[in-house]
């Protein structure tokens, strides 16, 4: 019973994340950096972080990237690897940080975005392009990631409160 509940929850989070992910592809990005996106679907990961255990969150993230790449036709392309390693590192960082009570939603979200950006640029520099010059992008990406992750935190908190009131009525 409890297991079914968990599977349903994971499925709900994944489908919500995918819907946001697909809508997001229509939003223009101010800097044309390969694989760079606003990452608004991460508010769903943030919500799942508060509601699911570690394995559940990892399921949500991995399924989001895999199914998202199927839907956009980018599976196994370089962009897929950038987004996969970015998302998984971000999730691991957020899971680790959320074990403590030092940070609020915003802190967790910003740390996750930073870790994800670090992994994205790292995977480009070390493996995909093998050039250190890609780090020139990092300041831009880090600042924009911070802005979008603060927005994500606001949406995640607001969404949870919405769920809560919705449930009580």
């Amino acid at each position, binding site marked *: 019973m409890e297991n079914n*509940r968990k599977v349903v929850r994971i499925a709900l989070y994944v489908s919500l994340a995918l819907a946001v992910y697909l809508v997001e592809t229509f939003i223009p990005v101010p800097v*044309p*950096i*390969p*694989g760079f996106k606003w990452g608004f679907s991460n508010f769903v990961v943030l919500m799942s972080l*508060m*509601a699911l255990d570690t394995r559940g969150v990892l399921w949500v993230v991995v399924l989001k990237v895999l199914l998202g790449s199927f839907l956009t036709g980018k599976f196994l*392309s*370089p*962009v897929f690897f*950038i987004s996969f390693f970015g998302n998984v590192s971000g999730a691991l960082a957020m899971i680790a940080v959320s074990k403590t*009570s*030092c*940070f*609020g*939603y*915003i*802190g967790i979200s*910003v*740390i996750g975005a*930073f870790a994800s950006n670090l992994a994205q640029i790292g995977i*480009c520099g070390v493996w*995909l*392009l*093998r*050039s250190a*010059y*890609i*780090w*020139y*992008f*990092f*300041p*831009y990406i*880090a*600042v924009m990631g*911070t802005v979008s992750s*603060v927005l994500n*935190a*606001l949406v995640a*908190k607001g969404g*949870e*409160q919405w*769920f*809560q009131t919705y*449930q009580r009525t």
Partner: protein
Amino acid sequence: MAMDNRSNFFKKISARPLMRKNDLLVIGGVFVLSFALSFLIPQHQTASIVIVEVDGREAYRFSIQKDGEYPIRGCHPVGGTNPVSHTLHIRDGQVYVEDAQCRDKLCEKMGKIDHPGQIIVCVPYKVLIRIEGYQVNENGASPDAVTR
């Protein structure tokens, strides 16, 4: 029974506040680090050479003063022989890419670059185009500075 479960579930998640004081430190840290890193980019140099790296190795080197269109052979994403993947344009001290063979054409959208520290990247073909410069001497004039 089921209702109890659910209400516990939501009580647990709303315990964490939207923001704690540490969050501001985290945001401040990211901004400070980004600004510090952006100062490492050499912007006080005059552009002189366009360097094209393919798969991390320098493959082409052009003077930025000379206008021209050059075919670039990137690293083929699947393997086999390397086809011409881009055309590199150098015009009036500005560098840009056209005729990208990949689907996203992000390298074309990166637009024109004209000073050291800027790069154009094509991830599928492992091409990275960067500009290198030399230090401007003390009176600010360099022997053959790019005229605009």
